[in-house]
């Protein structure tokens, strides 16, 4: 039962980490894309530079979500208490 409890808690923790960890980057990515669209609408000739920078920025923001995913995976697969 103790083993089971730890696994249950681990799964719960992973789910909570991923779900809450996704909120921030999602909002951030939304804002970034909106700002990029606005900028492209203003300056269509700078679309190439803007979209390149946007991709890099999105990847950086996405990394935050990836961190939580890593934590979740650590909790699931490399749990020191299991």
């Amino acid at each position: 039962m103790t083993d089971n409890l730890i696994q249950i808690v681990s799964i719960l923790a992973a789910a909570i980490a991923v779900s809450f960890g996704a909120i921030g980057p999602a909002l951030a990515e939304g804002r970034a894309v909106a700002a990029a669209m606005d900028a492209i609408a203003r300056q269509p000739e700078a679309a190439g530079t803007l979209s390149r920078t946007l991709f890099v920025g999105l990847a950086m923001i996405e990394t935050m979500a990836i961190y939580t995913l890593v934590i979740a995976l650590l909790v699931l697969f490399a749990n020191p208490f299991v």
Partner: protein
Amino acid sequence: MDNPLSLAPLFHLGPVPITAPVVVTWGLIAVLSLFALVSTRKLSLRPGKTQTVLELFVSTIDAQVRETMNREPAPFRPLVGTIFLFVLVANWSSLIPGVEPPTAHLETDAALALVVFAATIGFGIATRGIKGYLATFAEPSWVMIPLNIVEQITRTFSLIVRLFGNIMSGVFVVGIILSLAGLFVPIPLMALDLLTGAVQAYIFAVLATVFIGAAVGDAPRPERPKKEDTVP
């Protein structure tokens, strides 16, 4: 499901356990070396297609380094270029069936980050001297010394985990999808993985440039020499 965080040695070379990422990396090294040898065999002032691509690649790295560091790119070009090429090829090696990208394992990313970390210190000392480099930790005041040291370590860890997480998650998701629906369904995700891999390679190289640039400092740009030294 396999544990994505664990590695099982394929075989032992004496006392040394050889794991899959090492083998794949050897293969990548062989491929890249062969490519380098073949593509640079016939360089001329009137470039062919391959040479044009190579020159575009090199001059793009130069421009990036110059823009970031305000310095001549010659000493940093091989490091930045190698990191970018290796990470890119490693990330895209997932296209080959049965091959798992080496960057999907912490050890490879840690090795890359270690190289960047060592290069940061090495270039910093080479440019400023040991005293000068250590003095940068006390900027803007001595209170910041612990914070600066912590920053050095955390940013290296963030470098490791960023690459690892992105690639590993891609591999992991594709694995999960593959276990659910085998045919055609993983293809969009694999395409996304390719994009992520390219972007992450670019980010890794840019961050390495930024770290080295911070270490060597924003020195006044010397007179631009006509001939660029190619030896680092």
